[in-house]
């Protein structure tokens, strides 16, 4: 009998359904599909839902709703289908985000390549050709955790923290990429720089990405990067998009 999925309470704030003990593609798809099903069920006591890598969270005021009631309903829903076999959400977007690799704007490319055991040119060639999926949005507004890269990139976080990487920084660790929303400290290595804004509070659609979206990070030159900075006013940093079906 598997330990997963697990249903647990989160303080008085809600209930968490976790599909696995570590990151995996099927568990990530299960979490996304289960969240969509909970949203579809439209239970009045659920005020909002979210996913992290392998789990779905339901915000429920447990001071006014019994956790047992919510748990029973969730158990019913869990039994209704094989969530690990679920398809990805509908209405996804493929983004191509121009990225300047290395230089003083992204100073840890060489270090990341060395840890991964490849030379820097090979690192750029591999990462710029990789297509990754938004596994979850979190930590900062609109900030994507994207994966999974090939096993070459199963590199650990660095020991110390980088004091600050800028907004738009592309960082790498544990087969995943992140584009930073705001300047922030990080233990991940800064390998590329984009002008792609994942959160634009004044825009009609403040959050650029959604879980399930896919991205590539094609390499551009310093001159091309400067040109994008000079002319782009959308905050999308020269990114192009197409609808995935």
């Amino acid at each position, binding site marked *: 009998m598997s330990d997963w999925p697990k249903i647990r309470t989160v*303080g008085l704030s809600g209930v968490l359904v976790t599909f696995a003990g570590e990151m995996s593609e099927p568990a990530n798809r299960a979490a996304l599909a289960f969240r969509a099903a909970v949203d579809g069920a439209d239970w009045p006591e659920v005020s909002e839902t979210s996913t992290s890598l392998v789990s779905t969270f339901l915000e429920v005021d447990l001071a006014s709703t019994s956790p047992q009631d919510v748990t029973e309903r969730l158990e019913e829903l869990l039994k209704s289908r094989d969530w690990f076999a679920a398809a990805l959400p509908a209405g996804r977007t493929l983004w191509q985000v121009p990225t300047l690799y290395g230089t003083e704007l992204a100073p840890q490319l060489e270090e990341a390549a060395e840890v991964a055991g490849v030379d820097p040119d090979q690192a750029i060639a591999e990462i710029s050709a990789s297509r990754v999926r938004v596994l979850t949005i979190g930590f900062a507004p609109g900030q994507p955790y994207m994966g999974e890269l090939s096993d070459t990139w199963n590199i650990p976080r660095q020991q110390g923290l980088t004091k600050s990487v800028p907004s738009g920084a592309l960082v790498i660790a544990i087969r995943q990429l992140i584009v930073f929303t705001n300047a922030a400290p990080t233990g991940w290595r800064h390998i590329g720089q984009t002008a792609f804004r994942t959160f634009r509070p004044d825009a009609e659609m403040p959050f650029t990405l959604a879980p399930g979206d896919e991205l590539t990070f094609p390499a551009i030159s310093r001159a091309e990067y400067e040109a994008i900075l000079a002319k782009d006013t959308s905050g999308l940093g020269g990114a192009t998009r197409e609808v995935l079906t």
Partner: protein
Amino acid sequence: MTAHLTITQAGPALSLQDQGRAGYRAQGLTVGGAADRTALFEGAALLGQPATHAVIEMAGSGGSFTSDTDIRIALTGAEMAAKIDGEPLVWGASHRLPAGAKLTIGGARNGSYGYLHVGGGFATPLVMGSRGSHLAGGIGTVLHSGDALPVGPDAAQDVAMTLPKPDRFGGGKIRLVESMQTASFDAETIERFTATSFRRDARANRMGVRMDHDGAGFATGAQLSIVSEVVVPGDIQISGDGAPYVLMYECQTTGGYPRIGSVLPCDLPRVAQAQTGVALTFEFVGMEEAVNLQTRYLAALKSLPSQVTPLVRDPASIRDLLSYQMISGVISAAADPFEQES
């Protein structure tokens, strides 16, 4: 004409706050809003208006302010020395601020966050449903000297009203419930955690409050391999150095550090208001007791408007206090105090 409150001199950490913007956790944005939610309800009760209005949160110290028309103000949260044109004001009360008069608010004496409320609330544009600055999330900024904040239309007139003195500034026992990762700590660690007297560290902001203590740090066997999970305000996260952080309303939405438990929402204002060095201890309560405590807290917030009394009278000298109609019925005692206005 719209009234404006101008900040003639801003303290280092003033920001506009309300009950935050819910509904964006999936997009990586936590609710944010006032660090001490109780103060929002006290200010609303003193001014006879909804608790959804935006207020100025003052972390550590205030500043000076002037209004271009007569407005009403109320002062709540951490007590700070306040004056209008040099005349001392009672904290925890409502006052009239005449046009052109200079309101000065000093440093916090007994807590961390003071609040300046205005009659009608601040009428800045809503951003994604809230007027609050989410500093960590990149929405809004701290307030600066020279900022002129529009004040909304004020529907009431009463001033010189007060509330019983709040008691949430001295730390003490903070109650928590087990949460999703509590079981990954062994019984000995949990026991030591609840037996430890912590001190509120100077490292504290709207995202979280670090707790300092003597002795070894706290850890789980699985400390470094826990998959990132949802984070909610109140979670006590054990960071890499073994120190607990109580996460506040501006915390991140997900995190990989294990959480030993979750502070009851009703006790979170006491964590926010504890001054640097103040002693705090943590006690686990069962879900049933947690629900009772939180329900009682919400009922107390609802009853605040009925506890407002005129400033000049000593409530102890009034025999049948409850028979007095103290304020007009802007707030229904039956209304849900957490319901957002649209």
